[in-house]
């Protein structure tokens, strides 16, 4: 009897608890982009189980279309225009988030295009590849909205762990193994540092939300433990964006990973790291600019200089692009080094730079892949005389390379320009010094970019084989997208407009 009563009582209590528990109101529209990606990645995984071996070719199409489908809610949300804040401020869908979600989805789509033939022809597991790729992209789209340390951390792991696996996808090649293991070990090490920093931040601020952290740390004076926390968190993300001196994994990983994944790491994954860094620096550490500025100044200068100087000595194009990416990361960091002194233009600059960088860097990797289909090599001399047997590829590669070097009217100049503009706007001695260092570095970078152009235009074909390069449809599409954007971003106001609207929702901004 008493047992029954107890059971009944328990049932009652459970009922009471169910009543007391209020399901948080979920704005499904706001979550739709991420949910579509979740749906597609499940679909890919299931389809892979039931598809016969000779029909696996539909998987990349499925993944690609899924990413484009996820763009639809992004566009409807943008058309709607209202900022949405979910889960008590941990997750925001504002203009900043939307622009970056679009960047991750479109660049993810281009990576799928790059992967299509490479993975199908290379005797690799296909279904799992696209599943992991989509999972990593999901981590990124979540990262764009994350306004809370825990959400940021989950998003970071979500995007990193699949990437560790993908980096080692060429498992029969020792270099592929090296790529995966190195990336994984360095990655978890950085995660450890980051997590330690985050725990200190939480201890100091008493909240995990960036806006709350911003308020809590703004009032406190400069305490060593706060500085330590800030340094640790920034260092953790410096690894992700491969800023010097946390860059050592990048060249080996880039060289050993499958080329589409190299493109993915150097563009999307790097952009995701910057997204988190920007959110932390602009919102969370808004009151700690005394610590953040010199730290980022140093990281920016070291990255652009060391990246450049080492890139000059590379003979492998993928490695060269890795180091050039490190140098470009320095340019993206530069406006953050004067954060707090220039208002909105930090965000505009970083977002504009990320958009343009994605277009031109993905383009360069696409050409590398197209040429490697014939020559089987990414060594710079193997591009000799490309203009004689593949003029379109050579011209496109020149466009991407000189865009990366920042030669107008190709997009890169505008990216560098907005970075310069943000830095000079700060109007301090340190800022001007940074601007001059940036100017000198942008000239040095021409050295290695032009070197590749020289090889393509001015040197003979190394083995005399001038047969055509067959470019598959997927790569042609990728070239068309990146090429058009690289030119259009340079002569129109699209990129800067997108950069300009990408602002944080008011309730979570400082």
């Amino acid at each position, binding site marked *: 009897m008493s047992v029954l009563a107890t059971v009944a009582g328990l049932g009652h209590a459970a009922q009471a608890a169910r009543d007391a528990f209020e399901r948080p109101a979920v704005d499904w529209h706001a979550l739709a982009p991420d949910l579509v990606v979740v749906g597609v990645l499940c679909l890919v995984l299931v389809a892979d189980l039931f598809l016969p071996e000779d029909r696996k070719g539909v998987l990349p199409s499925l993944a690609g279309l899924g990413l484009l489908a996820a763009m639809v809610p992004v566009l409807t949300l943008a058309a709607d225009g209202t900022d949405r804040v979910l889960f008590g401020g941990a997750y925001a869908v504002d203009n900043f988030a939307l622009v970056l979600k679009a960047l991750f989805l479109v660049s993810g789509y281009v990576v799928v295009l790059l992967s299509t033939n490479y993975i199908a022809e290379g005797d690799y597991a296909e279904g799992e590849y696209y599943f992991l790729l989509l999972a990593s992209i999901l981590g990124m789209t979540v990262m764009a909205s994350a306004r809370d340390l825990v959400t940021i951390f989950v998003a970071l792991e979500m995007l990193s762990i699949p990437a560790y696996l993908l980096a080692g996808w060429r498992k029969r090649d020792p270099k592929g193994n090296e790529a995966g293991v190195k990336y994984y070990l360095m990655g978890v090490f950085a995660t450890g540092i980051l997590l330690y920093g985050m725990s200190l931040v939480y201890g100091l601020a008493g909240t995990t939300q960036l806006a709350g952290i911003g308020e809590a740390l703004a009032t406190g004076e400069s305490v060593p433990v706060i500085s330590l926390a800030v340094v640790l968190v920034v260092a953790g993300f410096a690894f992700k964006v491969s800023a010097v001196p946390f860059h050592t994994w990048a060249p080996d990983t880039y060289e050993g990973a499958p080329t589409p994944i190299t493109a993915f790491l150097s563009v999307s994954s790097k952009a995701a790291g910057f997204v988190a860094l920007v959110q932390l620096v602009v919102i969370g550490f808004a009151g700690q600019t005394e610590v953040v500025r010199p730290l980022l100044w140093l990281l920016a200068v070291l990255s652009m200089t060391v990246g450049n100087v080492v890139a000059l000595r590379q003979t492998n194009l993928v490695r060269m692009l890795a180091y050039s990416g490190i140098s470009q990361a320095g340019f993206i960091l530069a406006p953050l080094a004067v954060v707090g002194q220039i208002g909105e233009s930090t965000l*505009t600059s970083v977002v504009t730079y990320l958009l343009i960088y994605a277009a031109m860097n993905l383009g360069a990797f696409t050409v590398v892949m197209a040429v490697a289909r014939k020559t089987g090599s990414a060594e710079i001399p193997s591009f000799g005389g490309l*203009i004689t047997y593949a*003029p379109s590829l050579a011209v496109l590669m*020149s466009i991407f390379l*000189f865009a990366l070097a920042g*030669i*107008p*009217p190709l997009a890169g*100049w*505008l990216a560098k*320009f*907005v970075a*310069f*503009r943000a830095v*000079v*706007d700060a*109007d301090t001695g340190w800022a*001007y010094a940074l*601007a*001059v260092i940036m*100017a*000198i570095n*942008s*000239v040095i970078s*021409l*050295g290695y970019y*032009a070197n590749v152009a*020289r090889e393509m*235009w*001015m040197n003979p074909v190394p083995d005399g084989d001038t047969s055509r390069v067959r470019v598959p449809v997927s790569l042609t599409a990728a070239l068309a997208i990146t090429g058009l954007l690289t030119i259009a971003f340079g002569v*129109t*106001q699209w990129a*800067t*407009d997108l*950069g*300009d609207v990408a602002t944080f929702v008011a309730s979570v901004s400082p």
Partner: protein
Amino acid sequence: MDNNQFLTDWGLTLMVFLPLAGALVMLLIPRAEETTHKVVALAVALATAGIGGAVIADFDYGATDTLQFTVDESWIEVINARYAIGIDGLAVPLIALTLLVVPLCIIYSWNHFPEPRNPKAFLVLLLVLHTGMLGTFVAQDLILFFVFFEVVLLPMYFLIGVWGGEQRQYAAIKFFLFTLFGSALMLVSFLALYFVADVDSFVMSDLARGVAEAGVDHRTQMLIFGGMFLGFGIKVPIFPFHTWLPDAHTQAPTVGSVILAAVLLKLGTYGFVRVALPILPEAAADWAPWIGLLAVIGIIYGALACLAQTDMKRLIAFSSVAHMGFTMLGISTLTDFGLNAAVMGMVAHGLITGMLFFLTGSVKERWHTLEIRRLGGILVKAPRLGWVLGFSAMASLGLPGLAGFWGEFPAILAAYEPGADLSQTTFRVYMVVAAIGTVFAAGYLLWLYQRTAFGTPTEEFEHEEIHDVLPSEWIAWVPMLVLILAIGIFPNIVFRVSDGQMTAVAQSIAAAVGG
């Protein structure tokens, strides 16, 4: 009236972008159809010249100091860059020069494209270059100016690097890196200017007004001018930034050298007169003695270097350093007289040195060498070619009656009485040094002519059949020769156009320094 309205609104834009459109069309034509490429390129260049000619004919010469054919549309709003274009008395002569030289270059290369041939790529690059040059001369917004200023780099890099001589790769990258270094710092200067002027605009006239009103402190002005000085000075090139020039000129294909000499070097001097002087008059006055000093060093250094050259093309390249020294001296006096001389110097040097590079190209093609001691007796082997060379050399050394004279003589004269409270003693010393420079110029050019054209052909070429000037060469050269003579006899062709604007610039500097 309708027609004129169309020209006013669209004339300049059409002129600037027609070559680019032509280049895009040519990309679609297969490479094997070489004749089609040549015809299309020439037609586009001539059409551009036609539109440009119509604009220049419609230009109101009664108001050369005001911008005409202006267009001011929003372009990249976030950074406040505008599509602001327009021409005045400073731009017109240089645009005319560009419109003339490019078609002539296409005609000249009709039947002899340098190795590795590929007329398609060569002509496409030439047309892109054309757009860049014209754009620089019409841009009235600093960002637009910067973009066009840089657009010329890529085609020139490839023209030198692909179609050039033995050391082409080295020369091409040297050219590129030097110029880019200057323009990177120039861009930082532009940005600093934008923030100190505080007018939320990159349009040149707005910035000039903003700087005057904001009372920007002296040190900042000097630094900003310094950045621009590097950018424009490397392009001119001013001694000691000239080292890229002899390499680039010597290694570039003939047409590349011609365009480099005729138009590209002018972008630097044009930048000084268009951007640096009007926007930062006070800094200009403080920098002027130093610019003048470097200019006269350039004059003497260039002349001495010429005397030491054994290669005809390299000699002419160094003579460019000396000639641009005169132009810079004219600018550094900050007087209307000196600035007019500078504009004249740009046009004259463009025609004459362009012509000399055409000639070295033709000599190289016939003798397969440009080593001065292996040449000789050009007048015997190819008399007409020899005469044209003589005519151009005379023009280059500043013989009165030919265009070169009107670039050098007024510049020297202007140094006698510099404007904007500059030290008379300093500039009179410069004047004397520059005058000595003209003697050197006569020396090296006459010596060059004597060694190459006079005498008898050297043994190795004694029995070689060498043809005289070809019809395509005549078509390319006659317009330039006629203009050299016409401007020499009647310099007002240029002065009448440039005077209004140059007087306005000089007056505004005097007012800024005096006030």
